[in-house]
Structure formats: structure tokens, C-alpha cells
């Protein structure tokens, strides 16, 4: 897998192969980055279509469009597709495009593995989505796949589990690539503490992936053997314990939520200084805060299981550690605000998304803190309040950051400027509709509406209708994003090397679009 690096270095001038095979056989970090990003965009719309089914069914009380079983398949699949198909691949795509350019390397360290880790994904998702057409339908037990319910899945179960295995292998390979690239391929003079924050957050994310994904693989393998090979990890009749699954799952699951947000922190830390025209406030505290969040994320998992009947000591431990995470997170938020303080700010689309990220992600952090209060969580657990919480951190957090990154770097990648007016329209449509969509879900949860149900009591009708209207508006607005991206790829005003006024960082020293191999000569790092 490493020989290609050398082979490419001998022919630095050669460009991409032609035709479809270019994309199948490519080992180039930009090609693979593009593939990842396009894949993520596709899955964003697939998962989004499922969300539209969910919101349509919840538009009114009563059952109108779909069977309850199908509704449950939609909630399960929507989560799996968005997490493993949209958000994570989008971040890996950004890493592929940006990391070599940001650290002054010609390519990723392990180009062939890079190709492999991408091409596993289409197969994994073809397998996952195909379960919707099997007898018995797709998985309907929730993305957390708790036994014993999950073990009652029909023929879909082994397909889902193998799909999760493939996604896991793909992310672990992607993570290995990032770590090796960052540790071994930096240009001379690019010391660790000079690295852009996007690279730092990705390095730490990669370590989280290495530690967390294999544990998920283990947990789902235990489900598989429980169902087909007579083991009893989670089967109480055989001496197992279904709560054990929850412990193992969330040992993966909580680090996983940080896997989906740390790269977003990195993106925002690149964008805000650029448009505030000031260096990032507190660079080293940002690095340490990221590292401490990553460490803490491994000792808070049972805040997802406060209601399983843990002893008081356990409840307290997990409550305090969870609240502790808010400290480094707060450090970051204050640093972003301090970076903007007295900056000469302009509000192009990437900056709009980044500022919205800071504001709306913080709302999600606050609802997280409310959920972290154990006695309170007994009321909120498994209600729409939790749904509102994680959509604030994931949609207005992770997804907004990904969109900010797309607008920020699209001119670099394509050599064309996107249509700024349309970009801003897209931002405002998204920012308003996403709040109409998710903010009422806080009220629904506080009033007691359970999550993952296709029908509900009439007192929840008004806010659900408003939420659904917001959902349809948000979904439709994303078609505008698609249009803008396609339009920018196909043409537009030429972008110079710098793209954004006085942008700092090695990627802005390369022409737009950059050459096929980024830095064949190691650049000078000031």
C-alpha cells in the first residue's frame, strides 16, 4: 500500500487517468475526497427523504401515510444513513482534500488504502438500503440496535450487521490514514503546534475512531452470534444481560458523537479567524480542550442509560463527568467569540454558517447539560427533548459546519466562486427553517411526547405540525445547496489562489484549483 506513494513521486507531473476508471482506481487524495463528498451528499438526500416521511407521518395525530413498522424502519434507517453515510464520510472527504494541502504533503500517506476505504462504503450502503426490500423489511429497532428488540428483526439483521462492519472497517482505515499522514508527512517546519486546527481536530478524531469503532464491531458481532450461533451475551435465559449491550454500545456511542463534532470544531476554527481577520484566539487552549474532550468522552457513556437502574454512585459519577465535558467545550465557544471580538468581520456564506454554528451548537450543548442532570433525565429520557438536543448538535452543529466548509473551500477545489447571493439565501432559508423544525421539539419533549412513535396524543398536534412545516422547508432548502454546488463545479467567476482576503494557511498558497499532486516540493513553513 505504500509503494504507490513512491511511484507517484517519480512522476509528479502525471495527471488523472481518463474515463470512469479514473474514479474506481484512483489513489489521489483529491479524487478520493471528491468521491467521499459526493457520496455524503447523496446519502444526505437519501436520509433526508426518510426524514420527510417521518415528518409527513407526524404532521397530524393518527396514522395517515405509513404503517407503524415502516415508520420505525424510517427512524432507524434515517439515523444510520445520516450518521454513517452523510456526516462521517463528509468529514473524511474534507480530511482527504484538506489535510495534505494544509500540512504541505503531496498526498495521503497510504493512497491505496484510501481508495479501498472509500469503495467499501457504496457496498455497505447498498447492502443496508437493500434491507428495506426484504421480507420483514429493514431494521426497525432504532439505530442503537438494542437487544432483545433488535434480535427480532427479520432477514435484515445479518445484512445490517455486515453493513456496520464494512462501515467500521472503512472508518478505521480512514483514521489510520489520517494519523500516519499527519504524523509522518508534514512539511519540514510544520511542527505539531503549528498545524491548522482542522488538522489537529481530525488527528484526535482519528484516535477516537481507532478506539471506538472496533468496540461497535464487537457489540454487533455479539448480536449476530446471539441470534445465529447460540451464544448468550445479551440473552438473559442463557445467563447474559441485555443491559450489557447498552454499556458496550454507548462505550462506542458517546465517543462517536464527538467523532461527529470535533472535525466541525476544526472547520469553525479555520473559518472564524479568516472572516474576522484575526488569528484564532487561544490556539493552544483549543488543542488542549479538544484533547480533553476526547479523553472525557470515554468515561461518560452511561449518561445514555440513567434509567436502566444504576446504583446511585454510578448515576453521580456519570452525571459529574458529563457535566465536566461542558468545561472544555465552553473554552472553545469563548475562544471563538473572543476571536470575533473587535475583528473586522465580513459575513460571506461560510462565516454565516460558522457563526450560526457557534450559536446553535451552544443551544444543543445547553440542552445536553439539562439531560446530564440525572433526576431530570428520568423525565426527559426517550422523549422528543432528546431528539431536539441531538439535532441541535448534529444538524446545526455538524451539518452546518460541513456546509460552511463546502462554501469555504469549494472555490479552492473547483477554481470557481460560488454564487454568493444564492449562498446567503440558502443560509437564511436553512437557519430559519431548522429552528422551526427542531425548537418546538423541545416543548414536545418537555410535555412528554415519546420519541420513535408514529402517532401521538392530540395535545401534541400543534407543535408537531409546526415542526413538520419547518422540516419540509429545511428539506426543500437543501435542493438549493445542491444547485449551488453543481453550478459552482460547472463554472463561475475564477477564484485566485488566496480566495478569501488575507486567508492564512498553506492551502491558499496553491492555485485554485490546486495541481493534481499538492506539494511535490515541500513548501516553506513560516
Amino acid at each position: 500500500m505504500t509503494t504507490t506513494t513512491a511511484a507517484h513521486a517519480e512522476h509528479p507531473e502525471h495527471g488523472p487517468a481518463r474515463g470512469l476508471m479514473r474514479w474506481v482506481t484512483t489513489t489521489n487524495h483529491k479524487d478520493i475526497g471528491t468521491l467521499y463528498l459526493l457520496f455524503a451528499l447523496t446519502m444526505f438526500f437519501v436520509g433526508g427523504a426518510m426524514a420527510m416521511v417521518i415528518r409527513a407521518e407526524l404532521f397530524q395525530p393518527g396514522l395517515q401515510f405509513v404503517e407503524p413498522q415502516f415508520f420505525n424502519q424510517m427512524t432507524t434507517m434515517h439515523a444510520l444513513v445520516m450518521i454513517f453515510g452523510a456526516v462521517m464520510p463528509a468529514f473524511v472527504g474534507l480530511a482527504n482534500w484538506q489535510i495534505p494541502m494544509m500540512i504541505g504533503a503531496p498526498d495521503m500517506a497510504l493512497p491505496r488504502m484510501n481508495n479501498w476505504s472509500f469503495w467499501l462504503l457504496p457496498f455497505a450502503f447498498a447492502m443496508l438500503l437493500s434491507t428495506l426490500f426484504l421480507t420483514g423489511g429493514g431494521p426497525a429497532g432504532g439505530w442503537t440496535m438494542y437487544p432483545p428488540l433488535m434480535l427480532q428483526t427479520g432477514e435484515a439483521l445479518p445484512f445490517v450487521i455486515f453493513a456496520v462492519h464494512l462501515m467500521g472497517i472503512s472508518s478505521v482505515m480512514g483514521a489510520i490514514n489520517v494519523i500516519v499522514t499527519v504524523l509522518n508527512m508534514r512539511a519540514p517546519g510544520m511542527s505539531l503546534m503549528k498545524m491548522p486546527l482542522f488538522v489537529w481536530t481530525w488527528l484526535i478524531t482519528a484516535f477516537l475512531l481507532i478506539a471506538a469503532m472496533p468496540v461497535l464491531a464487537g457489540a454487533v458481532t455479539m448480536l449476530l452470534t446471539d441470534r445465529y450461533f447460540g451464544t448468550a451475551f445479551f440473552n438473559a435465559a442463557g445467563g447474559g444481560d441485555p443491559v450489557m449491550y447498552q454499556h458496550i454500545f454507548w462505550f462506542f456511542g458517546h465517543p462517536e458523537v464527538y467523532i461527529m463534532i470535533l472535525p466541525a470544531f476544526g472547520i469553525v476554527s479555520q473559518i472564524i479567524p479568516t472572516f474576522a481577520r484575526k488569528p484564532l484566539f487561544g490556539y493552544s487552549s483549543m488543542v488542549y480542550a479538544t484533547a480533553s474532550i476526547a479523553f472525557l468522552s470515554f468515561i461518560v457513556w452511561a449518561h445514555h442509560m440513567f434509567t436502566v437502574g444504576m446504583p446511585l454512585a454510578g448515576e453521580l459519577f456519570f452525571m459529574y463527568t458529563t457535566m465536566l465535558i461542558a468545561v472544555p467545550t465552553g473554552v472553545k465557544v469563548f475562544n471563538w467569540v473572543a476571536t470575533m471580538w473587535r475583528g473586522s468581520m465580513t459575513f460571506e456564506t461560510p462565516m454565516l454558517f460558522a457563526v450560526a454554528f457557534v450559536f446553535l451548537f451552544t443551544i444543543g450543548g445547553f440542552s445536553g447539560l439539562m439531560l446530564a442532570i440525572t433526576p431530570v433525565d428520568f423525565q426527559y429520557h426517550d422523549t422528543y427533548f432528546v431528539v431536539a438536543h441531538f439535532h441541535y448538535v448534529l444538524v446545526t452543529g455538524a451539518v452546518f459546519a460541513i456546509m460552511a466548509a463546502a462554501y469555504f473551500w469549494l472555490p479552492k477545489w473547483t477554481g470557481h466562486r460560488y454564487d454568493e447571493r444564492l449562498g446567503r439565501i440558502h443560509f437564511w432559508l436553512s437557519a430559519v427553517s431548522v429552528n422551526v423544525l427542531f425548537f418546538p421539539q423541545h416543548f414536545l419533549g418537555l410535555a412528554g411526547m415519546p420519541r420513535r412513535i408514529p402517532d401521538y396524543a392530540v395535545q401534541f398536534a400543534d407543535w408537531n405540525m409546526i415542526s413538520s412545516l419547518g422540516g419540509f422547508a429545511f428539506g426543500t432548502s437543501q435542493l438549493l445547496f445542491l444547485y449551488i454546488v453543481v453550478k459552482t463545479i460547472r463554472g463561475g467567476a475564477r477564484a485566485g489562489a488566496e480566495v478569501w482576503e488575507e486567508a492564512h494557511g498553506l492551502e491558499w498558497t496553491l492555485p485554485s484549483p490546486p495541481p493534481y499532486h499538492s506539494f511535490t516540493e515541500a513548501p516553506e513553513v513560516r
Partner: protein
Amino acid sequence: MTGERERANRRLTLRIAAVAVAMFGFGYALVPLYDVFCQVTGLNGKTGGRAAATEAYAVDPDRLVTVEFLATVNGGEPWTFRPAVARLRVQPGRSYVTHYLAANPTGRAVTVQAVPSVAPGLAAQHFHKTECFCFHRQDFAAGEAREMPLVFTIDPALPPEVGTVSLAYTLFELGETRAN
């Protein structure tokens, strides 16, 4: 790029891959680790799967604890399974006898296993069963109904704030009885 960098890349790759494989193993290791942890700390509401030694406790005549008996059948199988009495007021230290009723509604000989759980979890280590149908698998002939005994003592060391202990059994079908 030099061969040296390639060797360094390969070395690092192998090391990280080894960590990933180790973490897969760690996921499995969590299973016994949790069990050990629960045994050491007495958390999780698991009563021992074996008969407790018949110890003589000093009976506390001034204290009464309510024990609630619950029964669930796993996965909606059509079994009849219920406690003979729903609750007992007991004195810690004294031994009590009660029983559960189970009936096999099917036309097959079936083996079942009842799995106990005690709430609050911390009470589990003070709930001693000297005899219990849950210690063994139970064979039921087609259509058979029977009473299954349970003998238990509550340890007087049960923390004073615990006034009610619930003992819940879930009945699992293990399949048709095999002749042995």
C-alpha cells in the same frame, strides 16, 4: 520520497492497526469485566444463581420489609406464570417459603428457565435464596401446570432506607425438552 519514510509509514500503520484489533478484543473483554465489577460491588440486582448457605441470622423483630413478587413471560409466549402471593411483609433474618405457578399451554414438552432480578439493585446482595426454581431448568410435560417453590431470607444488614424489595422473574422458553 525515500524508502525510509515508507518504512516509517508501514511501521506506524501496523501499530495503529494493532490498536484497532486490540480494541475489538476489548469490546469482548468488557463482558467479563462488567460481571466482575458487578460481583465485586454487588450492583446490578443479580442474585446468585446458587443456593445461599443456610446461615442463622439474628431476627430483627421491629422491622418489616415488603417483598413484592413479579412475573413476566419473555417474548409474549402464551405461558401462565405468576406468583402465588403478590407481596409478603417479612422480618429480616427469618426464612420464608412461597411459590410461583407455571403452566405449559402448549402440546409439547418444553424446558423453561426463570431468570431473577432484584430491585433496588443494592438489595440484591442481601436477598438470600436457599431454594429456588430458578437454580435449575424446569421441564414441563405437555399441558402440565405446577407450583414451584422459593425459600428466602432477607439479611438484616439490608440498608435501613430500603422498605420494599421487588423480586422479578422472567420466564424463558429454552425449547422442547430433550430426553436424557
